């Protein structure tokens, strides 16, 4: 990506909406999408007829159990008889949706865009884990009957080995995020837990234990984005999308060292260049790195250039990423605390930064004043990252 001076249209955020994140919901996926979308419109002070375009995000069709899930979700997402489409980068989808919403507006094609992300994982039997077997290479990997946790465990263990990181240090992420989630009214698994609780929880795939992981969830999230003019008309406290970046590494994940997410570095640099950020660890005030597993938050803080390689666990221990720390991380409670309806969880992270910058995060509001925030998601076979930079 060459540096680009041509992007001139500013894109603002007008509203956000979430459903509760819960393990089982009565509502259909369309209805969950509707609930989140309606709340986002309400917060923005808009009606559906005001919306030009809709962008949908959802992770594998195999979860909700509908092929062409974007078509199915279009109805509940307010996409009927509008320009509506679905974007998809695996687990990184949640942040790709607002990125896509950004270029819908920045291109000049749309003025007001509704972005909606939804996931319903409770309907697939015997267990959502079984569905994850189908994300592996069908010939060279799937016959080994892998499950998703293997991916994380392999990456986590390589990361631990490379830098000599202890499991106890990583468990602190789970403790922090579940604690942060106590302040979040949408959260599925908030709570005061200890490092010992994590260390004593069921071993799933060593080094991954029960409390290292986010739960499977049903839920939806939505945001309203608009052009600069419209944003200024509707709000006196605008929040702007100032940088976007995304990168996919190759499919040959076994063939590269897993200790460092180089694709995230690429994506982050793309977004920072656009936002004019030169020293991320000094200029970013609050961050929502993707945390489906506790070590991932640390891994991602390093990929985001907020912590040096192998340094994130030490900064975490010092309280650097706490709500009252230098750069609070996952003030929402993250996926570990709020839940993980995959694409909706990524969009929830973006919304959390919007709340912080807008100053409406309530008890989640971080202690220090904030100007610049970053949300990030991660997906595919350890190869995709999406990054969004926002400012108030």
């Amino acid at each position, binding site marked *: 990506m060459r540096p680009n001076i041509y992007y001139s249209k500013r894109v603002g955020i007008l509203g956000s909406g979430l459903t509760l994140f819960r393990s089982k919901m009565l509502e259909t996926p369309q209805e969950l999408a509707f609930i989140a979308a309606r709340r986002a419109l309400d917060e923005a002070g808009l009606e559906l007829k005001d919306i030009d375009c809709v962008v949908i995000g959802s992770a594998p069709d195999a979860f909700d159990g509908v092929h062409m899930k974007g078509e199915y979700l279009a109805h509940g997402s307010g996409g009927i008889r509008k320009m509506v489409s679905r974007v998809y980068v695996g687990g990184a989808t949640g942040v790709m949706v607002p990125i896509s919403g950004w270029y819908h507006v920045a291109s000049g094609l749309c003025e007001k865009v509704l972005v909606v992300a939804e996931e319903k994982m409770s309907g*697939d039997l015997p267990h959502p884990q079984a569905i994850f077997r189908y994300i592996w290479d069908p010939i060279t990997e*799937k016959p080994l009957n892998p499950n998703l946790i293997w991916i994380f465990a392999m990456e986590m263990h390589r990361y631990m080995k490379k830098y000599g990181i202890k499991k106890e240090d990583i468990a602190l992420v789970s403790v922090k995020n579940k604690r942060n989630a106590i302040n979040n009214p949408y959260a599925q698994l908030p709570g005061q837990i200890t490092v010992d609780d994590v260390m004593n929880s069921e071993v799933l795939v060593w080094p991954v234990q029960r409390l290292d992981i986010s739960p499977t969830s049903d839920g939806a999230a939505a945001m309203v984005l608009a052009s600069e003019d419209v944003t200024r008309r509707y709000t006196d406290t605008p929040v702007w999308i100032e940088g976007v970046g995304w990168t996919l590494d190759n499919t040959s994940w076994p063939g590269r060292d897993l200790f460092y997410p180089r694709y995230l570095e690429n994506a982050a640099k793309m977004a920072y260049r656009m936002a004019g950020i030169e020293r991320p660890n000094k200029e970013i005030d609050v961050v929502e790195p993707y945390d489906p597993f506790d070590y991932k938050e640390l891994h991602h803080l390093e990929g985001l250039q907020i912590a040096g390689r192998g340094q994130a666990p030490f900064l975490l221990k010092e309280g650097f990423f706490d709500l009252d720390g230098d750069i609070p991380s996952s003030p929402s409670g993250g996926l570990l605390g709020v839940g993980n309806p995959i694409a909706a969880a990524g969009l929830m992270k973006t919304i959390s930064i919007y709340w912080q910058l807008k100053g409406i995060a309530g008890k989640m509001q971080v202690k220090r004043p904030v100007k610049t925030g970053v949300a990030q998601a991660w997906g595919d076979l350890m190869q995709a990252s999406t990054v969004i930079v926002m400012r108030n």
Partner: protein
Amino acid sequence: MSWDKGKETKSWKDIMEAEKYVYTLGEAGEKFLEGLKEGKIYGRKCRKCGRVYVPPRMYCEDCFEELDEYVTLRSPYIDSFTTIYYDDEGNKLDKPVSIAIIRFEGVKGGLLAYVEGEANQNKNVEIISYDIPLKVKVV
């Protein structure tokens, strides 16, 4: 790879199936099921635009508001139909079957139904089996 092609290649068989999926229906869907059991077709009305939706759902697609009261629908008729002679695998069916989309007076939406009798557009029908899909008879 253009110079390195043409050898006999393999293929690998596998599946991408869940054991099964279970879909909840939401409140409106459950009410619709209840109605079927009572031999009724429920629609659900939008307070704002006045339209009645069938199958009933949580929201109005245009007003994007939560729908309001349930109403019982009457006067079903065929909006469009088709007759199937061959199945998906290319086998001729012993007896062709007709499927129609049934609508109701003044209602937005419709329901799929298997049709007995000579199906045609705008013909009135009688519901003979309250199920998903419906079974109807041309009257």
